[in-house]
Structure formats: structure tokens, C-alpha cells
């Protein structure tokens, strides 16, 4: 097979994979629905002449659809942000929570659960503290004279550890009968409680974040060559990097705010995407979007269909992600040489 047709096949696969998994996902669940009913129901708002039952409509649109969309959006966001971070930090081993977004959001959620317990407030706090932690990381790194990439990454490590300590502090004082399990459960990640309202709340940050990353994806290649080269090619590296960090942070904070902390996607999906389409971010970013969406939806389907008790999705992504990661490592992935 020549190179071009191989490329076309990969791209076709990346376009159709999430679509196929999307439709299959509606079939899974306690109430059995036939594929024909799924297609009919989904098309019914467009074609009112189709006859569908009220029960099926409710299950499809109010129960399954929000969760499926949630899985697609969260998976795509974490994977795109991970791919962007790997490129602009010139490091294939970093992931979407490099600058402290996950622990920041986790702290926000834990704090909200402790003082209020209202779902929507937990989501807002998680989102805002995700933004706060990355901003802290960024501004701390700017106070150093040689404020290069390394300082930024190390500030991220520090801020992450700081918020992690705060999370532990909240767990320590939380009521072990109701608040503590809720916090722990949130931190393990779940897509079970996603509703249409929650999705609508994150729509704007997700759209802005994704638009920034998609628009700047070719320029990420230049940043991957190092700041001096990027500047000699006419780019203002720190300004463009800041924009990309802002995009990634909007995406991950919004994603984490509805799903809790879901690990490994932002690390392994960009790698899988790179193995399929190569390192050119012009294709890599959309490919990560597609693979991340497909992967998380697939894992969520496993979590709610294959196993009778629902396992928190953060645990499953790790259990499935770690072997994949080790397999990639064993393949002697050329980038890591």
C-alpha cells in the first residue's frame, strides 16, 4: 500500500471511529433499545413523521445522550490539550495536567463539596480553581529572570503538589460519613452525573479552548523546534505559548469540572495519534481530538455495560491506559530515544 492511500485510510478511520462508537453507545444500558429505534429516535427531531415511543425518547435524549456527549467532549479536550502541551513543551512525556489544572480543579471541587454540596457549585468551583492553579503556575514562573520552559514546568509541579496537599487537608476535616466519600468519588472521576445543563455550562469554554488550539495548531510545530528558532521564524514564542496554555486550560478545567479527574488520556492518546498520523500538529491535534473522544466513550461504555457495578472511570482509564503506555514504551518509540 502506498503512503498516500495509507494516509487517507487513517484519516477516514479517525473521522468514522467516533461516529460509529457514538451510535453503538446508545444500545448499551439496562433498558435494551434496538439499533433501528436508536437511529429513528435520534432523527426524530428532524423528521417529526417518524414514530418513536416516549420512553425511548426520554432514555435516548435525557439519559444516554448527555453522558455520551460528555464522554466525547471530555476525552477530546484532555487529548487535545495533552497533544498541545507535548508539542509546546518539546516533551512527549507531559500530559494535560502538567501545569496543575487537575489538582487545582480537584481542590475547588472538594472545597465546594465541603461547604455546600450543591452539584452546580462543585462544577463552578472546580472550573475556577483549575484556571486559578494554572494562572498561579504561570505567574510564579514569570517572576524568575530566566523564565523558560523548565521553570514553568517546575512551577507546575510545585503548584500541583500544593493543591494536592490542600485536597488532603479537606479530606482530613471532611465528615467521613457523607462528605468524604463524595469528595473521594469525585476525585476518581465519573461521567454518571452529566446532565444537559452541565454540558451547556461548559460549552463556551470548551468551544473557545478548542478553537484556539485548532487555530494555532500549525504554529505549535514552530514552538516544538525551540524558542530561538520559533523567534527567528517570526513568532513571539512566549506570547503564542501563553495563548495555547490558555486554550488548554479552558479545555481541561471545563472537562474536569464535569467529569472529575480522569488520568492517562492526556498522555497516551497524543502518543497513539502520533503513531498513526505523525508529529505534524496540523493533523495531530484533530487526530487527538478524534481518538480521545472515541477512547473515553469506549471506556465509559465498558464501565457501564460490561461490569455490573459501575467502576469510577478514572480507575478504568488508568487500568486500560497503563498497559497501553507500557506497550508503547516497549515498542521503542523513536521519540524517546
Amino acid at each position, binding site marked *: 500500500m502506498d503512503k498516500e492511500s495509507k494516509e487517507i485510510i487513517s484519516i477516514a478511520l479517525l473521522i468514522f471511529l467516533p461516529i460509529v462508537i457514538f451510535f453503538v453507545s446508545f444500545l448499551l444500558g439496562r433498558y435494551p433499545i434496538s439499533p433501528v429505534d436508536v437511529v429513528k429516535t435520534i432523527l426524530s427531531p428532524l423528521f417529526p413523521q417518524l414514530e418513536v415511543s416516549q420512553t425511548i425518547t426520554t432514555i435516548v435524549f435525557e439519559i444516554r445522550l448527555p453522558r455520551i456527549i460528555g464522554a466525547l467532549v471530555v476525552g477530546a479536550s484532555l487529548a487535545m490539550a495533552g497533544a498541545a502541551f507535548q508539542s509546546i513543551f*518539546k516533551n*512527549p512525556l507531559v500530559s494535560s495536567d502538567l501545569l496543575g489544572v487537575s489538582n487545582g480543579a480537584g481542590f475547588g471541587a472538594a472545597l465546594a463539596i465541603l461547604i455546600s454540596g450543591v452539584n452546580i457549585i462543585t462544577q463552578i468551583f472546580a472550573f475556577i480553581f483549575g484556571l486559578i492553579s494554572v494562572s498561579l503556575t504561570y505567574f510564579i514562573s514569570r517572576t524568575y529572570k530566566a523564565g523558560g520552559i523548565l521553570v514553568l514546568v517546575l512551577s507546575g509541579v510545585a503548584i500541583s503538589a500544593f493543591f494536592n496537599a490542600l485536597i488532603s487537608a479537606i479530606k482530613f476535616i471532611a465528615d467521613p460519613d457523607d462528605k468524604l466519600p463524595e469528595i473521594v468519588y469525585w476525585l476518581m472521576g465519573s461521567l454518571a452525573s452529566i446532565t444537559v445543563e452541565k454540558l451547556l455550562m461548559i460549552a463556551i469554554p470548551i468551544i473557545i479552548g478548542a478553537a484556539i488550539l485548532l487555530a*494555532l495548531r500549525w504554529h505549535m510545530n514552530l514552538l516544538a523546534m*525551540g524558542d*530561538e528558532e520559533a523567534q527567528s*521564524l*517570526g513568532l513571539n514564542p512566549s506570547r503564542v505559548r501563553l495563548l495555547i496554555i490558555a486554550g488548554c486550560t479552558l479545555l481541561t478545567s471545563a472537562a474536569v469540572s464535569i467529569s472529575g479527574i480522569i488520568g492517562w488520556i492526556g498522555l497516551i492518546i497524543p502518543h497513539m495519534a502520533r503513531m498513526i498520523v505523525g*508529529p*505534524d500538529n496540523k493533523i495531530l491535534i484533530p487526530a487527538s481530538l478524534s481518538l480521545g473522544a472515541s477512547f473515553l466513550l469506549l471506556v465509559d461504555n465498558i464501565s457501564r455495560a460490561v461490569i455490573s457495578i459501575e467502576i469510577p472511570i478514572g480507575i478504568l482509564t488508568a487500568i486500560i491506559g497503563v498497559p497501553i503506555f507500557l506497550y508503547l514504551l516497549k515498542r521503542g518509540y*523513536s521519540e524517546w530515544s
Partner: protein
Amino acid sequence: MVVDKLFDVRNVSFSYDGEEIFSDISFSIDKGDVLCILGPNGTGKTTLIKCLNGLHDIDSGEILINGKNIKKLSFKEISKYVGYIPQSHVPSFPFKVMDVVIMGRAPYLNLGESPKENDKEIALNALKTLGIEHLKDKEYTNLSGGERQLVFLARVLCQQPDILILDEPTSHLDFGNQIKLLEIIDNLASSGLSIIMSSHFPDHAFLSSTKVAILKNKQFIDFGTPNDVVTEENLKRAYSIDVKLIELDDERKVCVPLKTNLKLDL
């Protein structure tokens, strides 16, 4: 009427962390000039070069490109006039050669834009000019040092600059590739590009340069044509060893460093 020089450096000084690297350096070059900057290790050649392309901000003096002060130009504007190849490159992701070369079109693209058909054509032409079209789908991280240098040269040609600034372009090349690269530089200069490069080899000055500067002790100790500047006396001053200049049959000169009879007490 005073005609603006293509590249005019006036009384430029630079210090790093309070330590002066060089001071009061002035020179200018015209279209088609090849300036070779010689000097011992650690004398600040790379720092000077990074001032010339705007990567470092100078402390005093001014650098004029086509009569425009570099401090008033954006990175993007500078990159349309000045192309730069650093001395060393830390390999990144295994990009295809074509993807690397087309990065040279960035000065002409806005944020949010990516290269178009006509940019691809320019990149392909640059590869053809340098005779490395066959490498276009290879991973640039897997190339030899010589091939990779040509890839970066192709990228810099895509910028369509007036001036090329090359930091020791031959330092990672073998014996044969060094000469080939200098001949390419010679050709580019004949086509109207101006070139500023640093080098560790005084010989290289005779091969392709129209002007030579020797940087030592924060100053140019000499500046002029290769025949005037690359002399046995100047080389001794620069490198603190005796050097013999030998003229070959085709009137080309070569520099031979003489042994210092160093004896280690082992």
C-alpha cells in the same frame, strides 16, 4: 545623499548578567557580501550573532537593517529580512523534512493560518535548489549532520530573506561537506543574498568570504578583506599560536597551525 547600507551595525555593546561580552562594535555589509567572523572559543561570536538577528537586545548602539532600527521591528518583520541557522539544534519530534522546511513560510502567515499551496511550492523549490528534494518525506531527526544542515538552509531560503546569519554552519559537518556548504554559501551570495557567518576555520574565510572580522577581547581586532585580515600576525594575536599561511597553485591560501610543542608532565 547617503544610501542606506543593507546591514549597518553602529557602536554596539552587549553585556550579560553585568559582564560585558563586547563593546563598541561597528561594521556594515552590502548586498552579496559574505562576512566571516573568526575568533577563539568563548569570545562571544554566538552572542554577537544573536544580537544581529534580534534574539538578544543590545545595551547600546544601533543595528540598522535596510535603514530600519532592529529595535523598532517586530520579530515577524525581522524574520522577513534575516534568516538564521543556530549552531546546534536539539532534535524535536520526528517531523518530515517538508514539514520542517515549510516552517520557513511562517513570517508570511498570520497566527491561525497554515501554509497554502503556494507556500508548499516555495518549500519544494528550496529543496530543489539545494538538491535534496528526495529527502522531503524523510524524518529530519534521522538525517546525517550534512543533510540536516541543508534542510535548515532550505527552511531559511523559504523565508526569502536579504541576509542569512549562520552560526558556525560547518561545525557538525565532515571534511567534504564543509567545502560543499561553503560553495553553496558562495552561490547564494552570487545570487544576491548577504551572509554573515561565524567560523572556527580561518581557511573558510578564503573560500567564500568577501569580508572577515576577528573578534577578540570584546572588540574586532581587525576587519577587512580576507587577504588583509587573515594574516599570520592576526591569527597569532587571535589564537595565541603560530600559523603559517601557504598559497596553493590556484592562488588559494590555506592556514596551517604550527605545533606548540606542548609537553604534559604525565
